[in-house]
């Protein structure tokens, strides 16, 4: 029974990880940019959500769409005005640029908000399912995370913009011949990455403490999920997230929670050596 509990915890955690990583994965897959900003944008979204709740009593559920839209805008403009200028340079150049932007955002938040952990406490209690306890706020977070990830999948599969993003991912020159403005699609994609990060921040604010100390951890998790699930694919991120969630959950059980993160990274290293295309082998596009 204790293993079932661990498994359930892992799946709930995994859904959150999928949502955390899917935007990072999309940006990496489509733009070939390793977005070092991702973790800090999650924290930023968390802060905005926390202060909306703390100062104005706005429920995170209502803050989430506003935070997400705001992050989209920031992401869109950042890509259009800055990253697009160096998008044709080697990946190290764009990585350095996003790393620099991350330092700015990170330090701004640390100075402005201080590193004191904060959290939205909804006090929703726990569900009891046949002896397995699941905190309601986590289930709520999981449902939101899955809904957002699913929505992104649909947008990419079904919409005109989604088809354009996939086309740019597969062959940007051929996409330009379709009349697709590639730099706009880059900006929209980066905007979507930031949107998902902001939304993740809003969800995490209900479940985890919000503190800049965690931005590197979140970035690392996004990295691991991509390596497990493959790049630029929503199903891949979902699979990668769930696998990581379950692995961490069991690792916490057996070796203690302080080692859960290490085990996640070890898994990534092993995979990089054994199966560099990712566990799922999905080279996908969705």
């Amino acid at each position, binding site marked *: 029974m204790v293993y079932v509990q661990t498994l359930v915890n892992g799946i709930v955690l995994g859904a959150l990880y999928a949502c955390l990583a899917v935007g990072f994965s999309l940006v990496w897959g489509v733009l070939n940019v390793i977005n070092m900003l991702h973790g800090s944008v999650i924290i930023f979204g968390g802060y905005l959500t926390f202060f909306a709740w703390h100062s104005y009593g706005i429920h995170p559920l209502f803050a989430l769409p506003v935070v997400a839209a705001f992050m989209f805008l920031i992401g869109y403009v950042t890509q259009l005005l800055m990253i697009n200028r160096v998008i044709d340079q080697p990946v190290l150049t764009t990585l350095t640029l996003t790393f620099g932007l991350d330092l700015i955002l990170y330090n701004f938040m640390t100075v402005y908000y201080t590193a004191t952990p904060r959290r939205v406490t909804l006090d929703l209690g726990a569900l009891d399912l046949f002896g397995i306890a699941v905190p309601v706020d986590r289930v709520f977070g999981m449902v939101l995370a899955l809904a957002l990830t699913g929505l992104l999948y649909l947008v990419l599969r079904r919409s005109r913009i989604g*088809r354009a993003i*996939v086309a740019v991912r*597969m*062959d940007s020159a051929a*996409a330009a011949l379709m*009349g697709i403005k590639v730099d706009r699609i880059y900006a929209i994609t980066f905007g979507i990455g930031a949107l998902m990060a902001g939304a993740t921040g809003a969800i995490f604010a209900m479940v985890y403490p919000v503190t800049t100390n965690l931005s590197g951890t979140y970035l690392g998790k996004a990295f691991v999920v991509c390596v497990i699930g493959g790049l630029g694919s929503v199903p891949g991120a979902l699979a990668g997230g769930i696998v990581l969630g379950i692995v961490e959950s069991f690792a916490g059980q057996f070796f203690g929670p302080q080692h859960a993160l290490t085990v996640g990274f070890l898994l990534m290293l092993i995979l990089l050596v054994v199966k560099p295309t990712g566990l799922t082998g999905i080279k996908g596009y969705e």
Partner: protein
Amino acid sequence: MAEPLLSIENLSAGYGDIRVLWDISLAVQAGEITCIVGSNGAGKSTLLRTISGLVPANSGRIMFDGANIANMPPDRILATGIVHVPEGRRLFRGLSVRDNLLLGAYLRKDDTAVKRDLDYVFTLFPILQERWKQDATTLSGGEQQMCAIGRGIMSKPKLLMIDELSLGLAPRLVERLGEALLEINRTTGITILLVEQDVITAFEIARHGLIIETGRVSKTGTTEALSGDPAIRQAYLGV
């Protein structure tokens, strides 16, 4: 003679410091099929890329339908009616045949006409209708070329430029595709600019021809006259 649909005047272009096209001048008459032939590396693909805006022009003019389109962004050039079917088909992996075709119509807002053009492509190449759900890059080479041409038609071209129609295809398929081009030209009046390494095929399909050698136009004329030219017969037709 009527005003040509496309006329290029003293065009030079290349990649960075590498110049590939030197002082190219040519004209393509409306409603006709014209071919550009030349050996590997002559600059044929670069010429098409410069016309469609993927490669910047260093100097010269590209007049299309009365306006200079040189160095316009690709989406605006496409909107004027120049469509480029690139070498190697370049279909989008992971997308169905239908989604690939619809990407050709990405800029279009005339939904009913798009639907009609999709039906036209499906009557032209029925195999695409049978396979509409399939990942386009899993089609056979000939079917992929059909899909690439169909995607081009979905962009509603006035001028359809096709780079290496026959590349890697069996002669029977090349013949089938050549017939399709003739039919497209006859029934829709779309002007076609065909780039080919296979000179015999090109001369069979096109009425006018241009020969490009190391980035320069070396000869022009009707394909009938060109195939009678002893120098060309020796260099390109192997007789």
